[in-house]
């Protein structure tokens, strides 16, 4: 049986500042080495100043993953030399003498399987090395410390996954959960990263590092399983080792053994006293935690009779669920949910589009009211939606400006039908003989009104004219 375990790193980008100083946690908008201070570049004499909010965010994550969370936590130094590490040690956590990190022993249900979370720890992200030749601008290898000290949560699972597909489902659930908690933005480039380890029946565990994206992770896992199986079939021992994902060749490559044997000489980081997270703090965190995705979904289904799949889509996305929560009332919830999943999602399918879209919950409820009161057709609603997202203008103004109001005045439609009966004589004859071709005539009316005519009324009027 294949066993896969994961080690996921997620930046807490929703925090204002870094883990140990007041530089910005969101380092992305800065010129290289412009989001740094004596603390995060480890100048002599500087001391870490713990960001308590980061401890709270990490604890929330641990709670959301059903982990045990200890009364007090400690930080450790992981000692190793690397150019992106300003102090040449990383401040992280360790559970050597019992639970000292923010959480441990949790789980996530993935379909019917329980994936156990071994531990969750809070640590600092290192800087970034931009290698020689990475772009035309980089003639030599450079280090950018803007990222150094960004709060990072490491989530380690047990080797409970049986397939790369399960891994993908889990990562989707996890990234939705982290976003729903309001602590992270997994969609940001480099904000959420995962390494994996793989073993097959009768083989040793192989760790895979240096994986750029979730997509590559799945590929790397597939490659590694196939590699191990072919070794096994040929009776070659699968060595316990660390392998690197070679993004260019799409294969895993054995790392130099030196890296594996690295001794990190962990010991307590005494510059940060033990942090107490007492019961009242934990209670408050639990109370302020946003509703979980699964309970949201359940609520939508039970209260509003929304189809489970539709409810699931809305509940798992913070943006859609926020739109929905503020738009619905008892009588239109189901319609709004459908409008969201059939039309809105089609237009706003990326985080970037979510950020740029000007649509509000009021727009949604106005639109549904207009459709239900037959002020506009579904077709026109779709056109209006696009305009709303762009301009954010009031719906009434948009309807007027774009001339989208529904035509339900019988005489107006009647006049149009008379004209069409003159222009499309053959079609009228066809429709009289074969009633199923009547839709052609309805279509013509829609064409002339740019979809604004009330389709039910139009059909009625055509039928009565045919019978005249």
């Amino acid at each position, binding site marked *: 049986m294949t066993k896969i375990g994961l080690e996921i790193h997620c930046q807490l980008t929703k925090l204002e500042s870094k883990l140990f100083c007041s530089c910005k946690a969101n380092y992305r908008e800065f010129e290289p080495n412009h989001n740094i201070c*004596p603390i995060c*570049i*480890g*100048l*002599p*004499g*500087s*001391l*870490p*100043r*713990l960001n308590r909010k980061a401890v709270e965010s990490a604890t929330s994550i641990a709670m959301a993953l059903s982990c045990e969370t200890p009364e007090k936590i400690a930080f450790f*130094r992981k*000692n190793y*030399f690397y*150019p992106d590490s*300003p*102090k*040449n*040690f990383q401040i992280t956590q360790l559970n050597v003498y019992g639970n000292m990190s923010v959480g441990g022993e949790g789980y996530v249900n993935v379909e019917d399987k329980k994936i156990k979370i071994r531990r969750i720890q809070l640590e600092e992200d290192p800087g970034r090395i931009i290698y020689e030749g990475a772009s035309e601008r980089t003639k030599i290898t450079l*280090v950018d410390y803007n990222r150094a000290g960004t709060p990072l949560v490491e989530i380690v699972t047990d080797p409970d996954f049986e397939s790369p597909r399960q891994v993908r489902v889990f990562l989707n659930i996890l990234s939705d959960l982290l976003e729903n908690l309001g602590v992270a933005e997994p969609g940001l480039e480099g904000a959420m990263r995962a390494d994996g380890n793989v073993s097959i029946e009768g083989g040793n565990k192989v760790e895979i590092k240096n994986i750029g994206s979730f997509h590559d992770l799945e590929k790397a896992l597939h490659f590694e399983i196939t590699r191990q199986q072919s070794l096994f079939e040929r009776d070659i021992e699968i060595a316990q080792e660390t392998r690197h994902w070679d993004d260019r060749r799409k294969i895993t490559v054995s790392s130099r053994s030196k890296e594996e044997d690295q*001794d990190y*000489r*962990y*010991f*307590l980081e*005494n*510059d*940060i*006293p033990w942090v107490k997270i007492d019961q009242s703090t934990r209670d408050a965190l639990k109370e302020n935690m946003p509703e979980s995705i699964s309970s949201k979904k359940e609520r939508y289904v039970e209260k509003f009779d929304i189809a489970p799949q539709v409810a699931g889509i809305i509940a798992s996305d913070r943006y859609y669920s926020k739109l929905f929560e503020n738009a619905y009332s008892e009588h239109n919830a189901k319609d709004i949910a459908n409008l969201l999943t059939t039309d809105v999602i089609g237009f706003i399918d990326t985080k970037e589009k979510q950020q740029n879209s000007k649509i509000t919950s009021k727009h949604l409820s106005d639109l549904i009211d207009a459709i239900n009161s037959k002020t506009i057709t579904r077709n026109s609603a779709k056109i209006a939606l696009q305009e709303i997202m762009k301009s954010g203008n009031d719906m009434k103004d948009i309807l007027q400006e774009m001339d989208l109001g529904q035509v339900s005045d019988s005489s107006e439609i009647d006049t149009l039908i008379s004209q069409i009966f003159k222009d499309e004589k053959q079609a009228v004859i066809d429709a009289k003989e074969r009633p199923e071709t009547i839709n052609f005539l309805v279509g013509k009316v829609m064409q002339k009104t740019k979809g604004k005519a009330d389709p039910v009324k139009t059909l009625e009027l055509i039928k009565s004219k045919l019978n005249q």
Partner: protein
Amino acid sequence: MNLNTSILKYIEDVKSGTFTVEEFTAATLQRIKDVDGDVHAYLSLNDSAINDAKIIDKKISSGEKIGRGYGFPISIKDNICITGTKTTCASKILENFIAPYTSTVVNRLQNEDVVITGKTNLDEFAMGLTTEFSAFGPTKNPWNLKYVPGGSSGGSAASVAANECLASLGSDTGGSVRNPASFCSVVGLKPTYGLISRYGLISYANSIEQIGPMTKTVKDSAFLLNIIAGQDANDDTTINNNNVNYLENIEDGIEDKRIGIIKEMTIDGLSSEVATATKDAIKDFESLGASCDEVTLPTIPYTVAAYYTITSTEAGSNLARYDNIRYGYELESEGYEYNSYISKSRTKFGPEVTRRIILGGFVPSAGYAGKYFLKALKVKSKLTSEVNKAFENFDYLIAPTTPVQPFRFGEKIDDPVTLMLLDYNTVTANLTGKPAISVPYRVVNGLPIGMQIMGNSLEEKSLLQSAYALESKTNLPAVPL
């Protein structure tokens, strides 16, 4: 002008107009010019000292709000950062490091209007007991230039003893304030761990070290502590001291106080001069109304080994950042890959620092941590509970600060183990986090002897009362320089 004066007397004189801040500063700078060629207490001087003094004089004459310091001259150990000044740690590797920020202690001093004279010499990265390990040459003992001043804050102690300033800030990881204080006959205080902010102190062994005042009198020590002690948002390990006034009631005496004489620190290894002085000090304490009894702390024989294990581990980690990548010295990188480049750049460390980094790579490493590092931590916690227990029966624990008097240059530098044993009486305060003070007690054969008093955590006020009481029993000669 008499430069051999206390801060408190100096302030009186400035207030009464006996002399101006500028006059006293100029005289101090002249004194430095005259003697520091021999003493070598300073690594760098503050070029704007006279200017700083003038500004303070102006404040005084115009009746503007003036800080508690009234411009008294103070030197700062060169492992404490001040914006825009070189902070070298007496190491070639930081020879050109100019700090871009100021430590909390110096900030607090500057807010109270002091004049900083300059930065003082130390053993490289504060590792040593004689300042012989300074990369820029040793400091001499003002009592006898052929003798070591102690260390690692040897420059600070010598600058105070030689009247090249009125006070200094040192740092104490295993005795680095108290040992040179004892060797140079000044008052040196190592406060409770967390009482004084370490923000801006370049770390050597951060779990046990503290900045401490070095002064001519016990009252001055209390005065300085009033300024620099207390919680700091920039150092998470600092503790609230409720703004205790350490100077208030300092003359209250020690009548009926119970003093424990630490057996393990007073039996073996003391020179006869130090042994005699210790016996006399006990008599003095008794004459002041205190009761003295022997107390045994059986873990003490293991403390020096534990101390070097813990400090080397932390030093190995704290000094890892000196890889010459973000700052450092000119070293062409062409032809090196990362690992060989940092190995090459780190050869600039001196012998003692190198020794401890190597030790620090070994004792906490996989397979050896249990035998060394974790065992050392056990010694630390066992010692702490022993000392805590002793404080249930005693108000103070005493011993001579060092087992021997100052020795000649070169006498012990090649014998690291003998050098390490000089720490025998001082490391306990660091390993347990307790405050301890070295009080000048006697000068024998022209060389000083200091007595150490250790108090319970955050009991600096009471500790300073006992130190003041002992000080009042002494009558010491002036430095012959």
